């Protein structure tokens, strides 16, 4: 990576508009139901809503009381009820129950359902079946995009992952296409689009259709984002399954960042209460450590503390006037910095404590062996012991999946024995989880004699016509082989090393995983952007089994412009903090800016949890 050619990274566009648009539309929708009303909000919409509006805005528009949509019946006494919900069958039944209960007791109220980001026909069908269609009015709040940070836009649709990749449901593709349309209209026109994955392709096609339909004249508009890259999560599960090592990733894995903010509990705040902290580029401390490997964070924090101390110390020897200046101008900033520093130091301590308890070292060693393909036996027995000790059900599952993907499936003996022990440790109902993992291809069993990969790959090379495509279509939901080992070799994902990898002065994206592995997803993006297409990557594509595309849009690409160095990286099914850190690193090296558009910020824990079956 030639750091000599480093150029200034373009500033990210201002995504504040997206928030204002969403807020204005919500206000408009609330005004459609004039008068005082109670607002019922779906649990998963509360945090996103918090990011764009607040209670006083709602109050200004005659929202009286706020309720959470949950299984308990509503106690509202208002004459107008407004529901702000995701389009889910379950929620429709909840609302229908309220309406029907009112009808039974002869009470008449007005009901309005606001679907976000869009309404589904299946929801209307439920309303019709429950006999409340017509009693409620429906609206759509097209809140597709929530800017979480200066370079992260989230659709806040964690269910996208399960809906598409497990159930094979295309319901969110239209939402993604509309999101792209909105971004293209505000920050485009995008002049070049790349993508890999079936879903990426569909989203792209639907988006193009919407664009053609609207034929907006983008002439004369200066694009801020020039390139987009769409990627399906299933192109690379390995990266999402690895233990995260950059600070932001560790904070996410340990405390769960929710909608860009985290709740630091008493163990972090060293007081008796929890503090909610917004984690973004505005946090001066966080923004400097978020992308760093955990091992270099301590040094940074202690350096920072010393500086802070020094600044405080300047007070000594000040005369009254200087002191006055200090108090009025600097003290507030210093105090703020002090508060943030102590929080992040507390978080680090807490992470360290948790990790040492879980023999993190051993786990990382096992993970690295899996990635490199060494000592598989040893890693397998590590996983086994992890299960037997009932450590964490999610971690155990994650390690098994990592083993399966890197090894192209578990051999039948291991599969059975690990599965049995897992069910014994964490509960027999996980039989369903295993079934789901098999369907999605995360945890599979090698068929007998499946070692004939050479023959197989030759066959798949031969069968490339449309008929074969149709066959794969038919088995869309069936597990596909990951070929991780071969891909890793082809792309050089495991850095060759002599001596220690300097994590403080990273030389490539592998630093996000301690120099042991370059995230596949990011490597693909790097390669394609470098080649301005997929030429030369045919072998990798064949191994990835992917549907790739690369197209130049209508707009003329003007090289050298900032927009040409700004890339919208779209992750369908979720993007991890580690991937964002790796691409930010790549951006700094290459002088380009990555903007992340993800269906949700994800992590191994979230992916695994999405595979479990729960009570209806």
């Amino acid at each position, binding site marked *: 990576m030639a750091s000599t050619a480093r150029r200034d990274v373009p500033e990210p566009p201002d995504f504040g*508009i997206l928030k*204002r*648009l969403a807020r*204005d*539309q919500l*206000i*408009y929708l609330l005004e459609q139901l004039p008068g005082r009303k109670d607002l019922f909000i779906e649990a998963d919409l509360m945090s996103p809503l918090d990011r764009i509006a607040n209670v006083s805005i709602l109050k200004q528009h005659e929202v009286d009381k706020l309720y959470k949509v949950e299984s308990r019946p509503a106690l509202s006494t208002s004459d107008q009820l407004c529901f702000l919900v995701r389009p889910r*069958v*379950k929620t429709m039944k909840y609302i229908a129950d309220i309406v029907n209960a009112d009808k039974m007791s002869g009470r008449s109220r007005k009901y309005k359902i606001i679907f976000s980001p*869009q309404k*589904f*026909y*299946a929801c209307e069908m*439920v309303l019709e079946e429950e006999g409340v269609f017509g009693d409620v009015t429906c609206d*759509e709040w*097209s809140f597709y995009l929530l800017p979480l940070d200066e370079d992260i836009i989230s659709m806040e649709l964690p269910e996208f992952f399960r*809906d598409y990749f497990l*159930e*094979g*449901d*295309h*319901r969110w*593709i*239209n939402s993604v296409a*509309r999101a792209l*349309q*909105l971004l293209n*209209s*505000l920050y485009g026109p995008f002049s070049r689009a790349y993508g890999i994955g079936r879903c990426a392709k569909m*989203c792209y096609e*639907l988006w193009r*259709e919407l664009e*053609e*339909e*609207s*034929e*907006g004249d*983008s002439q004369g*508009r200066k694009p801020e984002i020039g390139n987009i890259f769409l990627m399906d999560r299933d192109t690379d599960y390995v990266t999402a399954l690895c233990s995260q090592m950059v600070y932001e990733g560790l904070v996410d894995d340990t405390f769960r960042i929710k909608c860009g903010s985290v709740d630091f509990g008493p163990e972090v705040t060293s007081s008796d209460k929890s503090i909610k902290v917004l984690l973004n580029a505005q946090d001066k401390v966080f923004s400097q450590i978020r992308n760093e490997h955990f091992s270099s964070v301590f040094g940074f924090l202690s350096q920072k503390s010393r500086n802070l101390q020094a600044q405080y110390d300047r007070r000594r020897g000040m005369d009254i006037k200087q002191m006055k200046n200090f108090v009025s101008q600097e003290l507030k900033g210093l105090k703020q910095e002090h508060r943030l520093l102590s929080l992040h130091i507390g978080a680090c301590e807490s992470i360290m404590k948790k990790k040492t308890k879980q023999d993190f070292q051993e786990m990382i060693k096992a993970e690295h062996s899996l990635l490199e393909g060494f000592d598989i036996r040893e890693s397998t027995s590590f996983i086994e*012991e992890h299960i*037997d*000790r*009932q450590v964490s059900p999610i971690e155990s599952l994650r390690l098994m999946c990592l083993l399966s993907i890197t090894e192209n499936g578990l051999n039948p003996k291991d599969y*059975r024995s690990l*599965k*049995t*022990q897992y069910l*014994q*440790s*964490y509960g*027999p109902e996980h*039989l*369903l989880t295993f*079934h789901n993992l098999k369907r999605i291809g995360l945890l599979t069993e090698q068929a007998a004699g499946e070692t004939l990969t050479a023959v197989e790959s030759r066959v798949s090379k031969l069968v490339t016509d449309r008929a074969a495509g149709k066959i794969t*279509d038919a*088995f*869309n939901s069936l597990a596909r082989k990951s070929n991780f080992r071969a891909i890793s070799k082809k792309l050089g994902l495991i850095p060759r090393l002599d001596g220690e990898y300097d994590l403080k002065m990273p030389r490539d994206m592998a630093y996000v995983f301690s120099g042991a592995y370059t995230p596949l997803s990011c490597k693909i993006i790097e390669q394609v952007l470098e080649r301005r297409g997929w030429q030369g990557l045919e072998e990798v594509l064949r191994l990835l089994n992917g549907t790739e595309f690369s197209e130049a849009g209508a707009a003329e690409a003007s090289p050298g412009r900032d927009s040409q160095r700004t890339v919208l990286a779209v992750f369908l099914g979720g993007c991890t903090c580690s991937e964002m850190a790796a691409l930010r690193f790549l951006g700094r090296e290459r002088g380009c800016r990555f903007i992340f558009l993800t269906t949700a910020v994800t992590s191994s824990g979230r992916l695994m949890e999405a595979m479990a*079956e*729960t009570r*209806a």
Partner: protein
Amino acid sequence: MSRSRADEEEYWHSSKCRAFTFDDEDDELCQLKESKRAVNSLRDIVDDDEDELEKVSWSGEPVGSISWSIKETASSSTSSLEGRDSSLQKGSSSNAALPKQVSSYSLSSLFKGRNKLPSLQSLSDALSDTGVKNYAPELRRPKAEYKDYSSDWSPKDTVRRMQRGKVCSLERFRSLQDKLVLLDEAVAGHDGNVITAVLIFLKRTLRREILFRELEERQVALCHLIHFLKETGEQKMLLDLLRFLDRTEEVALSQYREHLNIQDVEKRREFLKGCIGLPFSPEDISHIQDHYTLLERQIIIEANDRHLETAGQSEIFRKYPRKASILNMPLVTTLFYSCFYHYTEAEGTFSSPTNLKKTFKIPDKQYVLTALAARAKLRAWEDVDALFTTKNWLGYTKKKAPIGFHRVVEILQRNNAPVQVLQEYVRLVEDVETRLNLATKYKCHDVVIDTYRDLKDRIQLMAYKCKVERGSAEEEKINSILNNTVRNTCFLL
């Protein structure tokens, strides 16, 4: 708008999309393009009986339907425009000319079809450069468009309209052929919401077997129906479908899944009993059997222990009251529980650990780990000792463990085992480095000293002397070793 008729004719004569120059509704323009594309691409979708298909669904229809729709929406948009809020006129300067359309981009989705105005001020602020011009046309989109005036939309147009969130009646798709073309169009359109909507319609208007048969060849649509049935909880139809498809394992799993919704344990047990006969894969059958047996056991244990606890006569329950019921817990948790409360029971009782071990064929490793954790928690060090002690045929005892002794140490340490107990196991850790690490960490001086002695590491031993207390037995030991080794080495030399 008044030109529409002429343009229409021009279009149909020239049959080129290019020639089509309506400038009112963007929607229609693209519908035209789409219809054309649809016609061309239809071959790809259904390649077997294309001739017949084209006859059925396309003969003569596109012309009628589209022109009709254009007229209809055109006239309705005029009428609705009159009754519009006057502020709109101010907002969109090019109002009179009914702007050459124009992108609805972003905002098309934002203010689709509402006939009241949003707060214009803030919006134009927000969109500094794209501004009013762009969404104003969108605002004039008449409400009438939401209604389905026509029963003549082509399948493609119907799908397209539905994708844009418009209500469309599907009732006119009555022949099976029409229904399937509609479904295929929906799938080709990539919008799952529309695919499901069409499936709801097909489900209502087709006999199950016919629907199932057709879906068998349409995997994407099939996935949508299965997901829909799961979400709406139409279990019976779901099972019928899976049976029809011969997906017997899924039939079994999906029935088994229902147990999650049964709260009452007795009912749950009964239900699980019924699951044993379901067509699971051979390996899963044993898991289901185990699940049933486990719950059966737990019910018995729970009843007994609750009785014991309330009677207050059992010491262990008095000393360590139960925090939660054992019902529905995993097997290992149950084993832990039984090692905690019922360790000494004879194998004959349901609650004894050995009985559990036998019944569920718990591997040694897992058993030892669990028993160790339970006994260590109770600080029953003799039990811990017994767990690892084996006698050989000469009657000598030896310590053996199916897990690494470092793991044993870790568990003991977590339960605050005293140094005497701890060091016995640290000593047994095979790997020297690990042993030294653990011994140093947990201050098992004896082990450290002995290890260094065995390694003949004089320097480390001398260094370690500083870490032990002055005048303690350990210091003395180090001294004596150091002296001895000196003598020994001399001797050797």
